[in-house]
């Protein structure tokens, strides 16, 4: 079975500050991981994903995430956030033979001017 935990339900930050959104997963087999973003009143869209290879994954809008197998984590980072990054962020994990990922509960990123 696979599961994912997003450790923070809400992360407030000031514009141009760095941010890290935390995600931990559990799975007994190899995994693949996603970060999705949901802007207000919209559906989700993919930010980045990890399948294999380099543990540092770069995505759209300046976001990146690092896969850490020993800590079972896939934290999302951005060195300098903008007001427009205010959104809900979802981490998702898939593993084994399942092609359907399990989503976390989401982290609300609130960027203040």
């Amino acid at each position, binding site marked *: 079975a696979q599961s994912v935990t997003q450790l923070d339900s809400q992360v407030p930050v000031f514009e141009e500050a760095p941010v890290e959104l935390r995600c931990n997963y559990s799975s007994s087999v190899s995994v693949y991981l996603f970060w999705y973003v949901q802007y207000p009143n919209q*559906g989700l869209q993919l930010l980045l994903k990890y399948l294999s290879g380099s543990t540092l994954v770069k995505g759209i809008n300046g976001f990146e995430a690092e896969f850490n197998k020993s800590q079972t984590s896939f934290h999302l980072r951005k060195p300098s956030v903008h007001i427009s990054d205010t959104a809900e962020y979802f981490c998702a994990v898939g593993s084994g033979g399942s092609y359907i990922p399990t989503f976390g509960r989401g982290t609300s990123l609130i960027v203040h001017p």
Partner: protein
Amino acid sequence: DAGITQSPRHKVTETGTPVTLRCHQTENHRYMYWYRQDPGHGLRLIHYSYGVKDTDKGEVSDGYSVSRSKTEDFLLTLESATSSQTSVYFCAISDTGGLGNEQFFGPGTRLTVL
């Protein structure tokens, strides 16, 4: 943007009434999914389809049924709506069942059951 539409976008209904939500795609993707999104719960899978007339249950399927008679349409039916089914419903599609395949999401349907 992937061609996914959901209808209706908003609906208010009363307890006990049947409700059908429609997801329509123009991408010819094989896989389609229905999720519900609730505060504190994130996205939870209701049902999914891996081809025409091929569907299976997700983690929160009780009280819901689905049908897929054409590649482009995936219907979600609440046979007798309850207040606990008040939620935002998202349809998603993906083109393969391979590991790590990206899902594309529709704009959502906000359903309120009074």
